């Protein structure tokens, strides 16, 4: 006993959380292994950065460990976990914003950070080279959304959660949520179309100036 392998894999999340309350680190390990990927996926979509997403992932499970006693069983464990993850992502985004402001004030911000910051604030359709594939384009479009819109789109489209769960995680009523999600989705779609259009236009411009024609077809999405 004592090793995670000793637990029946079907042991419920709630039972493992009970063990976490009793300071059983192996129970936390099982919970971590079971949920790290979906939680990380949410964090990465929110933070668009592997380093921050990993740091946030660790924070989420430290919060699970410390806050195991606060789980009342009124909602599903996964809903509770995603709520912690969403709040952690928000904390990271706020901290990042504060760091950026401080860096800009004292002039210590690097050119790369300024470029990333600009990319996050507004999508540059001309910048086709850094968004050569579909995944990068979706990520860039997500970056252009507000924090709340990004969370809604991520929970619904990338985590596959239903309205009820998203409503519990975000605290938005189910009817209001449908409207907000529709609007967020339309904004994302528009950003994607801008990027698609920018890539196509950029590519057309390149193909006319590039006599070798080797770069033709790099942005095939239209």
């Amino acid at each position, binding site marked *: *006993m004592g090793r995670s392998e000793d*637990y029946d894999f079907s*042991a419920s999340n709630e039972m*493992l959380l009970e063990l976490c309350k009793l300071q059983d680190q192996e129970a936390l390990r099982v919970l971590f292994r079971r949920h790290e990927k979906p939680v990380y996926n949410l964090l990465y979509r929110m933070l668009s950065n592997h380093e921050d997403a990993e*740091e946030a992932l660790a924070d989420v499970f430290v919060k699970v460990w410390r806050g195991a006693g606060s789980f009342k069983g009124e909602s599903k464990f996964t809903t509770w976990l995603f709520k912690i993850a969403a709040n952690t992502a928000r904390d990271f985004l706020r901290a990042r914003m504060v760091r950026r402001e401080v860096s800009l004030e004292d002039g210590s911000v690097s050119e790369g950070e300024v470029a990333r910051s600009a990319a996050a604030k507004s999508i540059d359709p001309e910048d086709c080279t850094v968004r050569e594939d*579909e995944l990068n384009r979706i990520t860039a479009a997500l970056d252009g959304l507000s924090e709340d819109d990004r969370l809604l789109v991520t929970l619904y489209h990338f985590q596959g959660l239903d309205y009820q769960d998203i409503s519990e995680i975000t605290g938005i009523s189910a009817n209001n949520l449908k409207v907000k999600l529709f609007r967020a989705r339309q904004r994302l*779609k528009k950003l*994607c179309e801008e990027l698609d259009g920018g890539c196509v236009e950029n590519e057309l411009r390149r193909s006319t100036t590039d006599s070798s024609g080797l770069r033709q077809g790099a942005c095939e999405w239209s």
Partner: protein
Amino acid sequence: MSGPEARKVKNHLESCKTCKAFLEDELAFDMRLSAVPPVEPVNDVWALVRARTKPRRLSPAVWLVKIRSASAAAKRAAAAVAVVGVAAVMFYSLNLNEPNVAPGPATTSGADNVIAVKWSDDPLGSHREALVECLDKM
């Protein structure tokens, strides 16, 4: 949507090209989003979590819950270990009741007594006599 409602929408879509195009556009965008592969952590983050969640002390209650949540194989293994343990304790306690080598301080010389001195709790061991002799001379 309920049956009659869905039928109404379907009928409308058949006659309205604008709505049909909008729906097709939305479905295509759904497909595009669902094609985005999930991302996974680059590094193993568990080490970071473990370092930051040191258990204070494992409560005895943990063992009760552990037993409840353990797999059948683990339960059988634990039961087998417990049975072997109890058998070993019983075996040794029976052996201890039998008369063995008489305990007592080793005061005389000889191979057997040297071993007895080594196994006794006397920290001075064979130096005791020499020490007593020195103290007498003082």
